[in-house]
């Protein structure tokens, strides 16, 4: 079975950890600076007052004048999410995080350890804790598991058997499938309001009317693919932080602070001679929010100058003065060094560079993003039967 553990409105819950009194009042996640003024997740009290996630800020404030806007806190959300993932891994689940607040895992390898599927799912919920109102769904298909987790009550584990999957999905609202609001509206105007109604339409007609996204939504409404979750590789735990006695907004000072962080981080013995492939730069802002940027290096390196050159320009994007700067080594290379050869076989350098490039792409975009084209029937008269795209992770 594929299980999906869901924590609705996770970024808001994480931001509210610092201001727990707001959890019972109408509150919403403030829009991201520089983007369209749409509010994020909302509390139950705000929802009761008629405020919906994704509403325009002006409309939300007009609907509920007492609405409190909570600053985005991506650093706290990232940290809280990582703690949850580690707790799940500690009890034996190989997790594949989809986004903060939503994670998939395979239960078949661990059911016997806990005495059955239900108990394994309860164990996962217990590992996350009651404070997050997590819920979990399990099904043979990924989307059905997500749908089950979305309709389950906090603390509930909902299992949908393969035979019941269609029946279970049919009455659920269309909003569960990832489709642009305008497309959802178009479908509603055509009288399609439930997943079952979308699944009942001919696939080709949906594709013609709504394009590839519509076709994908149609396929999900029919249960979606059966791709099994793959356990992630836990990130490296190498972090250095620098707190400032007063808020800093001078770029030169921030660059010096970054230089010091790079030097300290590279000197840590836990790095064990490995090269940095992916780094994250986080700042705690003076207003109480936070800011985070990740950088995947084209070539793994431990040269301080190159790391400073890659991270330095990001400091110009800071939206407010900083009270703490934090640098994290998210991913390191596996090897500790390279054995040089006297005479290298012809083409080996090119192959090595190609492999390195592919590893960079994987580090930046996640597993399954690199594929190989395998010719299966090059003589076929049907063009799409000639070759296959096979995911390649090594």
């Amino acid at each position, binding site marked *: 079975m594929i299980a999906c553990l869901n924590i609705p409105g996770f970024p808001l819950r994480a931001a509210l950890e610092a201001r727990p009194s707001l959890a019972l009042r109408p509150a919403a996640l403030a829009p991201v600076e520089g983007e369209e003024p749409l509010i994020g997740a909302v509390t139950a009290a705000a929802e009761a007052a008629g405020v919906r996630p994704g509403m325009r800020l002006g409309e939300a404030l007009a609907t509920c004048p007492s609405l409190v806007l909570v600053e985005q806190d991506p650093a706290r959300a990232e940290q809280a999410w990582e703690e949850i993932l580690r707790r799940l891994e500690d009890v034996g689940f190989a997790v594949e995080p989809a986004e903060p607040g939503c994670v998939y895992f395979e239960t078949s390898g661990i059911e016997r350890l806990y005495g059955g599927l239900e108990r394994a799912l309860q164990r996962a919920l217990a590992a996350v804790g009651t404070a997050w109102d997590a819920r979990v769904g399990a099904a043979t298909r990924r989307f059905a598991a997500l749908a089950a987790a979305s309709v389950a009550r906090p603390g509930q584990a909902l299992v949908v058997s393969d035979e019941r999957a269609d029946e279970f999905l049919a009455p659920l609202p269309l909003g569960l499938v990832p489709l642009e609001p305008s497309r959802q509206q178009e479908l509603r105007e055509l009288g399609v309001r439930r997943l079952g109604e979308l699944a009942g339409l001919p696939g*080709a007609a949906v594709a013609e009317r709504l394009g590839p996204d519509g076709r994908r939504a149609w396929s999900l409404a029919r249960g979606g693919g059966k*791709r*099994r979750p793959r356990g992630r590789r836990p990130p490296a735990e190498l972090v250095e932080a620098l707190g400032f006695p007063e808020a800093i907004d001078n770029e030169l000072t921030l660059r010096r602070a970054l230089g010091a962080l790079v030097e300290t981080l590279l000197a840590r013995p836990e790095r064990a001679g490995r090269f940095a492939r992916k780094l994250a730069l986080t700042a705690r802002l003076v207003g109480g929010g936070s800011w985070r940027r990740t950088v995947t290096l084209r070539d793994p390196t431990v040269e301080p100058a190159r790391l400073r050159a890659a991270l330095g320009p990001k400091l110009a994007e800071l939206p407010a003065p900083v009270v703490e700067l934090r640098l994290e080594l998210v991913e390191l290379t596996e090897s500790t060094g390279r054995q040089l050869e006297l005479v290298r076989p012809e083409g080996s350098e090119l192959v090595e560079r190609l492999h390195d490039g592919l590893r960079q792409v994987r580090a930046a975009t996640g597993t*399954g993003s690199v594929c190989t084209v395998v010719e299966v029937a090059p003589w*076929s008269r*049907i*063009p*799409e039967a000639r*070759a*296959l795209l096979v995911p390649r992770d090594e």
Partner: protein
Amino acid sequence: MTSEAVPRARAARPAGRVNEPRPALVEARFGGEPTHVNRQAVALVREEWRVVDRWWTEEPVSRRYFDVVLESGQNAVVFHDDERGRWFTQKA
């Protein structure tokens, strides 16, 4: 114990198809020749051919392909799927 030390069992992952047909908006004459592809007028039909295959299976293929030049100068290959009654574009 590090994660590298424990070989993980690999779950089977699905392979995708290369050059999958994509739905196209095509207007055609009575005889079946396309006049507009994705709202662009067809300037010239360069070639036309049929593909009939897998008729012995439950998923038979019966397509009428057109290699066309659009008014913008762009080349496109479209086909009418006789089984599904729909138009698609594809690199032939």
